[in-house]
């Protein structure tokens, strides 16, 4: 026999084990209702996989393990699931928790179990999975999922397997009877576990020496196997995991660590049998052996009971005399907990149901002061200082409790048992441990909160800084632009500044134009405004007549406001007509602009023309008109103010005077300007608008001089420019895969059609005319300019126009020659581009090639024409 060690402390309470061993292992009848808590183990609660109303068989899984540390739950008899609800749990808290409730049908039909003869040849992972599927959790009392214990980490080789048959707590004999009746199964289960753990060097079954029958049975069964049976002197609490390891190996499990960290795995005998049955017969954990004991019962014995059986059913079967009972305890007298209700079920960890009488277990005597006798320290199996811990726990000094290693307390109750002052020491420790655990959780949460908060602050600061940086950059850019503009102005360089400005003006005009509705719509809008204002006024007046006191005054003010608004709207309507006529005259002046109001090129022209027509004199006129309008309004207001004798009269009077002055000055200016108006092209403001006006004017003049053919050609050129732009837009849209692709494509097609039409017209007008205007389109096809903005387009127009003018003055022959020259340069350019595209493997290569070929063909054609015209 091996050497055995001893543990410090420990006590020898009355054993009381004989009462339940007088009768053989019994059975209880099936109850009508069974309750299966989803959390019968340490770890995450199981997840129900049945629905209410479903019929289940005995052994059928009704809840699945959720997560790594969890265990499945199985029905222990056949029946119907009647509810999945919160029921009182077998827990010291007396709290409720989710349970599956099963109404037994009494047939007790079993699901088919998958037996396995040759289980030792199976893969270890498969065996562990079988144990996991069977829902086995430690049956000694803690309920730690067995499968987890059997899969130690790779860096923790297991050299010792200990099977715990100690059962040190008084009264409990469930493991004793199991060892007596199922010794063979225990040995087989032990060998199975050893196999799963890769045959550790030492396999021990530890049994206290107060169970001679069990020792004899196990020793006999273990003969010829590597399983060692060790018995050792009875002492409470030898059956604790850490204590038993110390007794059998002399090693101490480090504080806060698991036994596997020193290469040891410990399992209860009940768990061992359950694991064996699960692997060998495929039987899940649906029943266990429980000691039913206590003087308040007529029959005291061990029973094999289905899990989920309500405790009141078990008690009823054993002649429970409620009057005699002092209380009801689940577990042993040392570590068990009192039940407040007896409708809780037997679960995987229920090893004893104790119903003592008052005589058997008198109520605790009144607590007295600690006399510092030190007996608790002598009894403590974990070598702690219970007395110190008691002081600190009472004073809630958790730092000091930590320093006293309170977390190593196994809550065995030995200190409370020996305390002459009857201090419920363990209860203090349990409370303190609970609080400390909660504090640790709170601390973790507050640390997380701090991190989140700091991160948020950082993020906000960053966003703020980015915004600030952007703002500064914009400011700087604006300043730079201003400086540059000033420098340009000083140097007299107009064009560079003007294009940018012209751009802005153009877009602004375009958007304004887009916003501007047709005159009819505008008028309708104004009319609507008038009607609504009238309606409002009427309503207000109505309310005014109904209201009284404060409300009346307020309403009166509102009515006044509404009246003013109505007046304004009416004025607007009256002054409305001139505006649209101005627009229409502009439109009539610019046939090119009528083509497409949405096209920026056309808009730019229209804008320039509008400015031109508005040029100094008209501008002044418009100014005068608007000023007169304002004057009229101001005078009206003045009159109203005078009528009401308001104190605003003076202010209004000065306003009216000022307006009159302004009108006078504007009229004077107009008078000065009118004579010089026709030649007043260099407007006083040397800005982009003026330049644009000039350009547009030049264009208008040129247009007037153009022959119909030239006009057409001009239009064709412009449409080519637009076409080019539209293509680029389409390409962009395609690249970005926007939903405007279809619309753009449609626009492009339309434009192409227009181009064709124009070309046809041109041809009809002048059959000899070479198809000059086709070129830009091809060029666009060959190499779309990456950013032909409005300026580029207008530039193209100007260029084309200049060319048209030049052509008009040329002889046909010269024209042709000129064309040939231009075509040749274009061809050269196209070829260069093609070469470049080839080098870069451009996807538009084919298009480039086609373009070059086309240009070549055209060149040939033009040369031919030249020859014919010469001859």
């Amino acid at each position: 026999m091996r050497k055995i060690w001893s543990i410090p402390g420990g006590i020898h309470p009355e054993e009381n084990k004989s009462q339940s061993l007088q009768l053989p292992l019994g059975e209880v009848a099936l109850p009508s209702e069974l309750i299966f808590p989803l959390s019968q183990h340490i770890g995450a609660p199981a997840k129900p996989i049945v629905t209410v109303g479903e019929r289940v068989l005995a052994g059928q899984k009704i809840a699945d393990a959720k997560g790594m540390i969890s265990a499945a739950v199985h029905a222990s008899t056949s029946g119907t699931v009647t509810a999945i609800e919160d029921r009182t749990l077998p827990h010291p808290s007396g709290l409720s928790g989710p349970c599956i409730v099963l109404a037994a049908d009494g047939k007790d039909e079993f699901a088919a179990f998958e037996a396995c003869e040759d289980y030792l040849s199976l893969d270890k992972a498969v065996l562990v999975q079988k144990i996991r599927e069977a829902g086995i959790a430690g049956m000694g009392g803690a309920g730690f999922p067995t499968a987890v214990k059997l899969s130690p980490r790779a860096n923790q080789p297991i050299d010792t397997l200990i099977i715990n048959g100690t059962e040190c707590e008084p009264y409990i004999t469930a493991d004793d009877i199991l060892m007596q009746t199922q010794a063979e199964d225990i040995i087989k289960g032990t060998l199975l576990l050893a196999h799963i753990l890769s045959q550790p060097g030492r396999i021990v079954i530890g049994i206290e020496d107060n169970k001679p029958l069990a020792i004899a049975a196990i020793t006999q069964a273990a003969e010829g196997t590597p399983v060692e049976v060790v018995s050792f002197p009875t002492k409470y609490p030898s059956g604790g995991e850490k204590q038993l390891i110390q007794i059998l190996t002399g090693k101490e499990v480090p504080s806060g660590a698991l036994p596997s960290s020193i290469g040891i795995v410990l399992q209860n005998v009940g768990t061992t049998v359950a694991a064996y049955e699960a692997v060998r017969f495929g039987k899940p954990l649906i029943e266990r052996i429980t000691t039913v004991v206590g003087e308040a019962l007529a029959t005291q014995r061990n029973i094999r009971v289905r899990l989920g059986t309500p405790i009141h059913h078990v008690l009823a079967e054993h002649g429970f005399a409620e009057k005699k009972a002092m209380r009801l305890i689940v577990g042993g007298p040392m570590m068990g907990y009192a039940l407040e209700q007896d409708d809780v079920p037997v679960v995987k960890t229920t090893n004893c149901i104790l119903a003592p009488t008052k005589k058997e277990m008198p109520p605790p005597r009144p607590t007295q002061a600690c006399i510092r006798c030190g007996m608790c320290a002598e009894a403590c199996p974990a070598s702690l200082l219970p007395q110190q811990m008691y002081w600190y726990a009472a004073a809630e000094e958790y730092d000091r409790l930590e320093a006293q290693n309170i977390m190593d307390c196994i809550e065995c109750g030995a200190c409370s048992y020996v305390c002459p002052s009857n201090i419920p020491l363990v209860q203090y420790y349990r409370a303190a441990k609970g609080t400390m655990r909660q504090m640790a959780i709170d601390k973790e949460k507050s640390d997380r909160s701090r991190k989140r908060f700091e991160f948020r602050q950082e993020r906000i600061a960053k966003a703020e800084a980015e915004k600030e940086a952007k703002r500064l950059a914009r400011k700087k850019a604006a300043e730079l632009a201003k400086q540059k503009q000033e420098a340009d102005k000083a140097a007299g360089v107009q064009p560079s500044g003007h294009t940018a400005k012209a751009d802005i003006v153009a877009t602004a005009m375009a958007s304004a134009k887009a916003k501007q509705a047709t005159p009819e719509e505008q008028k309708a809008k104004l009319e609507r405004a008038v009607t609504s204002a009238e309606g409002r006024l009427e309503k207000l007046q109505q309310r005014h007549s109904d209201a009284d006191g404060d409300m009346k005054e307020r309403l009166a003010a509102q009515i006044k406001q509404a009246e003013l608004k109505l007046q304004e709207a009416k004025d607007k309507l009256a002054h409305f007509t001139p505006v649209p006529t101005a627009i229409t005259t502009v439109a009539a002046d610019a046939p090119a602009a009528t083509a497409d109001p949405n096209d920026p090129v056309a808009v730019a022209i229209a804008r320039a023309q509008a400015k031109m027509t508005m040029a100094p004199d008209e501008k002044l006129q418009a100014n005068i008109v608007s000023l007169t309008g304002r004057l009229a309004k101001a005078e009206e207001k003045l009159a109203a103010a005078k009528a009401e004798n308001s104190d605003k009269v003076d202010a209004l009077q000065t306003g009216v005077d000022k307006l009159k002055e302004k009108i006078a000055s504007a009229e004077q200016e107009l008078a000065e300007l009118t004579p010089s108006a026709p030649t007043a092209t260099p407007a006083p403001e040397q800005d982009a608008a003026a330049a644009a006006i000039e350009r547009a004017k030049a264009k208008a003049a040129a247009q007037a001089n153009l022959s119909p053919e030239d006009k057409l050609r001009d239009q064709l050129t412009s449409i080519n420019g637009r076409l080019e732009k539209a293509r680029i837009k389409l390409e962009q849209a395609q690249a970005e895969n926007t939903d405007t692709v279809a619309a753009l494509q449609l626009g492009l097609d339309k434009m192409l059609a227009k181009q064709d039409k124009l070309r046809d017209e041109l041809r009809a007008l002048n059959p000899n005319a070479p198809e000059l205007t086709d070129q830009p389109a091809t060029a666009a096809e060959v190499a779309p300019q990456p950013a032909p903005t409005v300026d580029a387009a207008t530039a193209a127009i100007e260029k084309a126009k200049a060319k048209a003018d030049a052509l008009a003055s040329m002889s046909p022959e010269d024209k042709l020659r000129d064309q040939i020259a231009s075509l040749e340069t274009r061809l050269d350019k196209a070829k260069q581009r093609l070469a470049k595209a080839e080098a870069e493997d451009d996807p538009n290569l084919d298009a480039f090639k086609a373009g070059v070929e086309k240009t070549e063909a055209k060149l040939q054609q033009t040369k031919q024409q030249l020859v014919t015209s010469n001859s």
Partner: protein
Amino acid sequence: MYEYLLTHPFLAALIALVALALVFGAVLGYAAVQFKVEGDPIVDQLDELLPQTQCGQCSYPGCRPYAEAIANGDAINKCPPGGQATINAIADLLDVEAPTLDEEHGEEAEVKTVAYIREDECIGCTKCIQACPMDAILGAAKQMHTVIADECTGCDLCVEPCPVDCIDMLPVASGLSDWKWNKPPAVVENFQLIASDKQPEKDGAAA
């Protein structure tokens, strides 16, 4: 030289002391640079003790600013979420008398709460998201918002900005996971010098 010093002990002592002063000065100067402590360790320690709800009930914008204020001499009893426990801990750290909670800043809550958004009523204005110091509210403009209960510290800051009042502060559900044993009643209550004198009468009758 040596002879000279022997004959002039005062000068010798002076030289020795100056030499020592220089050596220690150098060592201290080096240590001051090499082992310089970044930040304010007392503020960090105080910040550790505060509950990190960032609720602002102390009138500082968050727990750390309050920790800084305490380090600069502000009162330590302005934190209702931390309650008396936090005040005691801070008093321990600073070695001062622990005052009671300043009621001006609010009362210690009996139960912890978390924000809960009645999602049917949420209009998706994102105001609570902007108010949450913990980034514990999820949602987007015109989309329903919801609170990540695990991250919510129950600071109440989201309740005020909600334009439709659809945020409730619900007590945290307590269950098995956070159940703990009660501390037994204090011994003094029951204290008798001779316990047997005060046995309950029933027992006496039974005996």
